[in-house]
Every structure is written in C-alpha cells, then in structure tokens.
C-alpha cells in the first residue's frame, strides 16, 4: 500500500461510518463530476477500501495516488484518468 502526505484534493467526500459498499458507490458518483487530472479525497473508516479502491482504479483507468492515515479513519486519494 502506498502511503502519502500533503496531497491537495480538488474535492473531498466524507463517508466515515457509512456502510460498505458506499466507498465504491460514492467514488463512482464523485469521479463522474471531476475533470481529468483532478484529485478526489475520500474519507472512510472502512478498511476494506484498502483493497477495493486501488482495484477499482486499475479497472476504470483512474490513478490511485495513495492513502493517508488519521486517528479514526483513512483518506484515499484518486486522480481522475483521461478515459
């Protein structure tokens, strides 16, 4: 897993305590709104996202930038691809 610091997101979505698979549904919904090259930050406490979000990115042509840990949740960073 790639851990990152100081990524500047264009859009943030807080889904802490929302149940699986909201991390994938919100991800898909939010990415539709972004322009290519923009960065989405997803805040979630769901640890299954460590597997799911990178997999979703490779399947959909978006770039998984990495994750940052906070005390109670994780911040995932995804850059919108061109396709």
């Amino acid at each position, binding site marked *: 897993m790639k851990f990152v610091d100081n990524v500047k997101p264009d859009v943030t979505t*807080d889904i*802490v*305590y*929302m*149940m*699986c*698979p*909201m991390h994938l549904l919100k991800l898909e919904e939010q990415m539709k709104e972004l322009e290519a090259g923009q960065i989405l930050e997803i805040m979630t406490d769901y640890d299954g996202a460590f597997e799911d979000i990178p997999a979703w990115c490779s399947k959909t042509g978006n770039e998984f930038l990495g994750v940052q840990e906070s005390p*109670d949740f994780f911040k995932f960073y995804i850059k919108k691809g061109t396709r």
Partner: protein
Amino acid sequence: MKKYYFDHVATNPLHPVVLESMMPFFREEFGNPLSVYEYGMNAKNAIESARGQVAALIHAKPAEIIFTASGAEANNFALRGIALARQNEGKHVLVSRMEHHSVLNAARFLEKSGFTVTYLPVDKQGFVDPDTVKKMITKETTLISVTHASSEVGTIEPIREIVKVAKEHNIMVHTDAVATTGNIPVDVMDLGIDLLSMAAHQFYGPKGAAALYVKQGTRIVPLIYGGIQESGRRAGTENVPAIVGMGKAAEMAAAELQARIDYLMPLRDRLIDTMANVERVYLTGDRHKRLPGHASFCVEYIEGEAMLLLLAAKGILSASGSACSSKALKASPVLLSMGIPSGLAQGSIVFSLGMDNTPEDIGYLMTEFPAVIKRLREISPYAQGWGDKEEGGSCTAKK
C-alpha cells in the same frame, strides 16, 4: 357507542388521502428499491420523492433525511450514533428529564458503555433552562438531547436558545420532535439543530415510517448494519408504502399546518378554560407555549387509570401520563421531574385533540369529564383530605 378519540399523541388516524397514496406500493409497485429493473426504480423514485416531501416540511435538504421505522429508532440512532462517533472528543452527554423512554433508555445504555450522562432538570412548567444547560456543560460534552415538546405535558422547549449555548462549545444538539413535527412549525435551519427525530403517525401518516434529520456533514455511527440503504447509514429493505405515506402526510401537513393550528388551538383552550373551573384540577405544562391540541391535567384525589376507565365507558378515549407509565401503573417520571408530588401525579390525564375531533366532541368531553371526576371523588377514600391518618400512617377518609 360513538367513540371520541382524544389520544392523538399516542397516534393519529391515517388520513384517507395518505392511505390512497400508499396503496400502489402494497400491490403492483412491490419492488425492492435496490433492484435495477423497473419495479426497483419505481420504488426508489417513490422513496426519493418522499424524502423531498419530508425535507420540505422541516426546511432540510433531502440528503439530510434518514428514514427509520419509528421515532424510537430515530432517537436511539441519534444518541448512540453521535456519542460513539464523537467519543474521542469526549464521553459526556446531556439529556433532559422530560425525555421519552427511547431517549432516556438510550442514555442509560451509554452510561453502561462508559459514558457519563447528566440529566437536565426542568421547572414546574417543564421547561429546560438554557442557563442550566450552560452550567452543566463540561469539556467532555459532545451531545445534548432535549425534546422539542413532551407528549405528556405539551410544553414546547426553548431549543433555539439551547442550541446557541451548545454551539459556543462545539456541542451537537438533538431534539425529539416526534410530538411537534407536522403539528407546529419545525424549521431545522431556524432552530440550528444538528439532529431531529420525527414520526409519520403523529401527523396523520402511517406507523412504521419515521425519520432522523442529520445535518449535512455530520458523522453518525449506524444503529443497524447491513447494506447501502439510506446512503449506507441505516440498513434494511425500506418500508416503501409507509415511507410514501409519510411523504404524502408531510406534504399535507406543510400545506395545512396553520389551518390545523387555527382549528385545534381554540378547542384546546375551551377545554383548558372549562377545567380551570373544576376544583383541584391542575393544568400540567405551560399554559401558552404548548402543543396546539394538547390539554393535560393532574386531578387531585383520584387515579388516572380510574378516570380512563370511566371515560372509556362513555366512549371517551384518552391517556394517563405516557403510554408506558400508563401501562405500568406508575407515576410518570416526567411529572415527577416537574416537581409534581407523586400522589398528584397518579391523577394524570392527557387529552390530545386532532382534526377528526369536532367542537361537539369537545362539548361532550367538557360535560362528561367533570362528571367523571365528581363520581370518582364520591368513592375516593382520599377525596376528603390527605391530612387524616390513622395510627400506622396510611391515608384514610374522614369518618
């Protein structure tokens, strides 16, 4: 025998127009809202439409409405969900003594789970004093829960003022607005509230549909785990017909709110004014800042249960204290918290009026209720005074 229903805080009759709106979702539109085909999409669209109607009633955004199965569930969800979500910031919760059991027992659960709960006192009218709230706040306080109006005494609490105090300390405020939503103006923006519970059957909607308003951006731990219904915050296949009915009832309440208040308030006031002339009958709750159709009394020297039975024999259906207290034959904790002596609190009775009550119905009640009091006092061993006691200390009637 004709029935006179004066127990609208227990539940309302379902409005025929609301029932009509629900019927297709019992029959041809039976789909699961998560299904991707037409049946599912129709059900999903109906729920989202209802969400908009409910949101409009309280001036919220549709995404801020989470449907639940009952007001009690909404209250449990709010208390547990916020206390747990914010437990790293503090583990202290403030709850008023006027609350419904679904708030009080949820608070007790939190106490058993390592939280500290402080119970806010109320004055003789049942008001929570915002200055007292201020004094009871600690650095650990994360949540305050105060009912918008108690269904037992009808007093409308100063929520806006309590919110002001709370916001100075970054504390969230929940209000149980089950008794008020759809009955008086409830505006979450105006109140500044973070969480608010409501139930459809309190405004002529069906049982089985209720909601928790959760201000946008608020993190809340789920009460029921499962799938992605309600944006992953409340799992379980939705009760589509009931939610549709709640939406319709909310739309009607929003449109008719002032007319309903204008109809009910004079009827309530007639009843209160009439009862003021009956000896040793005391209005409970505030005279003016109370629910429009709500008249509650404590009647000295007789028990609430006895009044209920004799009134029921005349077709008059009412309640004594909360539904739970009434069943358990115990003095209402809400009345005791207002400083009403337990003997007097046993003589509690609540008449809650609704749009199905006519002025003639109130006239009948105003004739029969004093007669029932008179009849019961004639046979009450206490009616001739509490003062005389035999040796051994038990109360007896004067010889």
